[in-house]
């Protein structure tokens, strides 16, 4: 109802997302990650050591072997290779360990993200769902979670081991020659510049692409859910044209993002190749000139073998840099996804400062209420008084009182003004009025889907802001105009009202709602699976189920918001009997357009633009000959 939808452009990447992501994962799996880090370290070192061993093989075995013959060095060759095999073995083992652990860490983290998102979602105020497109919320669970999976499962380990390798290689390189190393730094600088240029461009277009993608997917979702309306209005061509425009935009953006991302690989590789030559030439020139070679160990002469090994290491290094550059776009996308996930997790939950609880009680000897853990059918509000340090128990009856309630979904526009009413336990109140008069709003306030300032609404004499929301809602049955059913059997859907209800109780409730008749005619009766919000049932049948669901809940107070609008009046007349029994002894708030449904209410409240303009029972209001009278007779006289 209120406010504009907060879709618009996807939020820009906030700072600190990467740090938070790492911290969160580390918080979940500290031991796992330490093991992974150690394994990555070892396997990176083992792959670096290869180039060193190659040199030893050449210098210590092959060179002397050339003069001394194979037999003399055979043992040494085997020894060197055995050491190498050992190192390789450890490397493979580490890689085996860390990839397996990462599978656990990655999927485990995702599960926790999904769970925390879902848990948070359940605690969010209704307003959140009013102001966010459902497709947008959904994409956090799908697209964004997927992007995070990539970053955790692939990019992070790859980045980590690349960075370690680069540092390791850098140290080894330094131990060979400072001059050559400086040249390597130049190469890295150029690659980095190119990477930043194209990566940045790609990142920029990536944001545009995600935006276009979200837009197009939103459009698809809307058109698919409204496909039947599109057909009825023969709006197919317009929809196609609009779609093609969005599709073209997405194509442009994604192509630019991909182009800039794709060229990173060839650029880094070939800058590496070019510098390979430069290094080779520079190295041999240095050697020929006999230049002073500075390295970690001090000043040492440069040998050609050193240059060769150095070149091998450089190749390895440029491969690592290439690996990093290929991860950049994925990292960008993953971080964008993580940021949206965190946004959902950080969302402010529905506020609940209530402290009154609903507890089972039994009657003491003097009729006083005593809290008990037994399952009695007697409930009471446990109301602790902080200042006095006492606890009082008030029996749950279902009395509801509104006092001068003002409310607007947006502050500027009041939907309810100065509404007061008092429904004693067991009374049936009906709300009548034009569409948009504020009928549903009143019920939304009673179960605190929306909050109003203190003290205006009392339940059993207790300010509802002091009652814990779950306990308040537990004592209010709810049947809404828009029926929502869940994937599951018919029985499970009815049991939703009270999870510990037996099959018999559910069937009983279905009979009460007159739903038993059509349910038993379904292919598998109560075990028929419902999917897609009960798509296989008619509107009226779904409403009957929703009534049965509320009947099972067995609450002292009930809200029926257009509960029977899609049920034909004949069936309704049949339901009526059950409904009467259902409402018996409960405080009931009924909203209905059909005045026949509200006639027998204790009090009928006529609302107009958020004001109560008439109230009283049917006979009173008819006698008043006011709006209700006109409404009631109007159906006949207007034509």
């Amino acid at each position: 109802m209120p406010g504009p939808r907060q879709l618009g452009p996807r939020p820009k990447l906030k700072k600190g997302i990467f740090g938070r992501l790492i911290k969160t994962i580390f918080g979940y799996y500290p031991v796992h990650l330490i093991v992974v880090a150690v394994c990555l370290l070892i396997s990176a070192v083992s792959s670096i050591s290869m180039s060193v061993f190659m040199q030893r093989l050449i210098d210590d075995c092959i060179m002397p072997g050339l003069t001394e013959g194979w037999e003399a060095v055979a043992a040494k060759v085997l020894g060197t290779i055995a050491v190498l095999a050992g190192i390789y073995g450890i490397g493979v083992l580490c890689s085996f360990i860390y990839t397996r652990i990462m599978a656990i860490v990655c999927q485990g983290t995702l599960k926790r993200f999904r769970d925390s998102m879902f848990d948070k979602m359940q605690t969010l105020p209704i307003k959140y769902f009013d102001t966010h497109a459902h497709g947008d919320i959904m994409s956090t669970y799908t697209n964004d979670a997927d992007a995070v999976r990539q970053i955790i499962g692939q990019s992070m380990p790859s980045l980590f081991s690349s960075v370690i390798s680069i540092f390791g290689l850098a140290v080894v390189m330094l131990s060979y020659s400072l001059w050559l190393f400086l040249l390597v730094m130049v190469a890295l600088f150029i690659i980095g510049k190119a990477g930043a240029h194209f990566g940045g461009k790609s990142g920029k277009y990536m944001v545009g692409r995600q935006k276009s993608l979200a837009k197009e997917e939103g459009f698809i979702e809307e058109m698919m859910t409204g496909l039947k309306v599109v057909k009825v209005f023969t709006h197919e061509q317009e929809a196609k044209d609009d779609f093609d425009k969005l599709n073209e935009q997405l194509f442009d953006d994604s192509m630019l993002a991909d182009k800039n991302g794709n060229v990173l690989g060839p650029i880094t590789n070939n800058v590496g190749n070019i510098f390979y030559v430069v290094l080779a030439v520079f190295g041999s020139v240095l050697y020929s000139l006999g230049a002073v070679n500075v390295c970690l160990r001090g000043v040492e002469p440069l040998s050609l073998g050193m240059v060769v090994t150095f070149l091998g290491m450089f190749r390895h290094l440029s491969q690592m840099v290439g690996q990093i550059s290929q991860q950049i776009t994925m990292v960008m996308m993953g971080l964008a996804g993580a940021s949206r996930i965190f946004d959902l997790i950080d969302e402010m939950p529905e506020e609940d400062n209530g402290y009154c609880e609903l507890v089972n009680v039994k009657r003491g000897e003097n009729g006083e209420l005593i809290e008990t853990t037994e399952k009695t059918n007697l409930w009471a509000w446990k109301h602790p008084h902080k200042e006095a340090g006492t606890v009082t128990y008030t029996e749950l009856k279902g009395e509801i009182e509104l006092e001068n309630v003002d409310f607007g979904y947006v502050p500027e526009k009041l939907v309810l003004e100065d509404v007061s009413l008092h429904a004693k336990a067991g009374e049936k109140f009906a709300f009548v009025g034009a569409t948009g008069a504020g009928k549903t709003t009143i019920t939304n306030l009673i179960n605190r889907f929306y909050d109003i300032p203190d003290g205006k609404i009392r339940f059993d004499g207790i300010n509802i802001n002091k009652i814990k929301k779950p306990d308040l809602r537990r004592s209010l049955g709810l049947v809404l105009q828009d029926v929502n059913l869940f994937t599951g059997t018919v029985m499970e859907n009815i049991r939703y009202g009270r999870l510990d209800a037996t099959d018999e109780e559910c069937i009983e409730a279905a009979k009460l709602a007159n739903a038993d008749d059509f349910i038993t005619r379904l292919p598998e009766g109560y075990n028929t699976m419902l999917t897609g919000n009960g798509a296989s049932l008619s509107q009226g049948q779904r409403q009957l189920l929703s009534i049965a669901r509320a009947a099972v809940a067995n609450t002292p107070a009930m809200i029926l918001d257009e509960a029977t609008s899609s049920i034909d009046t004949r069936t309704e007349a049949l339901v009526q009997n059950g409904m009467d029994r259902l409402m018996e002894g409960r405080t009931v708030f009924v909203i209905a357009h059909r005045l026949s449904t509200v006639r027998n209410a204790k009090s009928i409240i006529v609302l107009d633009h958020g004001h109560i303009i008439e109230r009283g029972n049917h006979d009173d209001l008819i006698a008043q000959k006011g709006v209700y009278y006109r409404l009631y007779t109007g159906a006949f006289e207007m034509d």
Partner: protein
Amino acid sequence: MVKILMKSIREYKVPSIVTPLFMCGEVSMETMMPFIMAKLIDELEKNNLKLVLSYGGILIFIAFLSLFFGTMAAKTAATASCGFAKNLRHDLFHKVMDFSFSDVDLFSPSSLVTRLTTDVSNLQNAYAMIIRMAVRVPLMFLFSIIMGCVINWKLTLIFVAIVPLLGGAILLIITNAHKIFKRIFKKYDALNNSVQENVSAIRVVKGFVREDYEMSKFHDRSADVRDDFIRAEKLIALFSPVMMFFMNVGMLLICYFGAKLIITGTGNAFYVGKVFSTGELSSLTNYGVQILSALMMLGFAFIMITMASEAGNRVVEVLKYEPTLTGEPNGLTVVPDGRIQFKNVSFKYSDSAARNSLEKINLNIESGKTIGIIGGTGSSKTTLIQLISRLYDATEGEVLVGGHNVKAYDLKSLRDQVAVVLQKNILFAGTIKENMRWGNKEATDEEIVEACKAACADEFVSNFPDGYDTYIEQGGTNVSGGQKQRLCIARALLKKPKILILDDSTSAVDTRTDAMIRNSFKKAIPGTTKIIIAQRVSSVEDADEIIVLDGGKIVERGTSKELIAQKGIYAEIYETQTKGKEE
């Protein structure tokens, strides 16, 4: 499947073909490089600066060529894959737009959304990979083996021997992983489905305080998905250690035999008398790495393709589907008048349905009349009227509009002149004006106001701060149920239809407004045939004829008075609804 998908390449054939060609170029350059690097190293060791320089020059030349081919391939690949995805989305969307109601029922909107979004993205990724890798990987494999053989075929044989071993291992992993993946996708869909359900049913969840229940249900499902994913990923995770293992074994063998070769100077098989050098040893190890990593890339590609093939199947299912209901290409474009006839019409929703939803309906409605339809829950009222604008086709018998069979009309013309206000109607994101123009693109502001007045919507619309420019949220969540229904009626009125059908379209509107709407119809569209489905007797009481449906059959028909006199179902409904009114 592939053939159908390939139809969406169209104008992107050139980049799709050129990309692999560029890739060929890049791969040839890449595989040449270690060979020349080996030469360079050998010369370097001999401190032959001149030759080092010339080999270096060749290398740089090759590097530039490779850079050229690489960047070109990168660009054409982006164009090809994004273009393919664009066309695929286009084809899907246009196809779905031509679906009939029963086709939509068959696929369900939510599954169509998945096919158009996630599935296409998966296919796009797979396509990008295929055109870049399909040529590159086998070529790299082949070239590396050839170059390796040129250097030393005996040593290269070591790698060639390893290839089937590694290939077998990869195959084993993939087939096992594929099985799990197939299962996962189903579970994953179910998981997302439950999120969606909770988002739209949040009021019910909160109303019944089922947050904890839903959470624990979700946690179980997500744990299930996690466990399967871990199982699959652990298998995939074997890839890299297995690969490393074989690569290392290969390296060690080459080092050993290579060293032996160099020392014993047995020489090279191709160039007899030429001695195997250390430079060649190092370049041979490079080729070894390339051979095996090509194999591994092939493995990854396989995984991606098997994953995408699921998506491909689902997409092709839509592309291949023949819409069950198509208009006559050169059909009638004008509905002469608002006459409606049903001749012996029977209907069932699917061939497998046990009983007909409509049974032998015969009806004759004259132009300009108002017809009321009333009947119990599930009595096929909606089904009946959906046949008039040919949202479904009659299973038996024929439906005539304006004296012609509905099948003789051009579909768009028929539906433009037979306006239906659906029971489950929706507004689209956009301003009220934009929504109204769905009825008539060219409608002037005055016409829109006019239509809204006729539907009793003008009153509340002009009360909105932004009036007709008020932005309607997706699904129309920011207007009340009754307001939404009135806007939907106004939208239909803008079509100036010959026949107007209201399917329980005023259920959330109060009786007074309901009566006002019907009154204004009389003035605004006297010549239009009006069919009103309603629950309220008052909505149909003044109709020229009332049809009472029960179990898919017409059981009563006549004016309100006649039907009351019949003392049948209608009389009973009338009784319950008006009871006590005269008191």
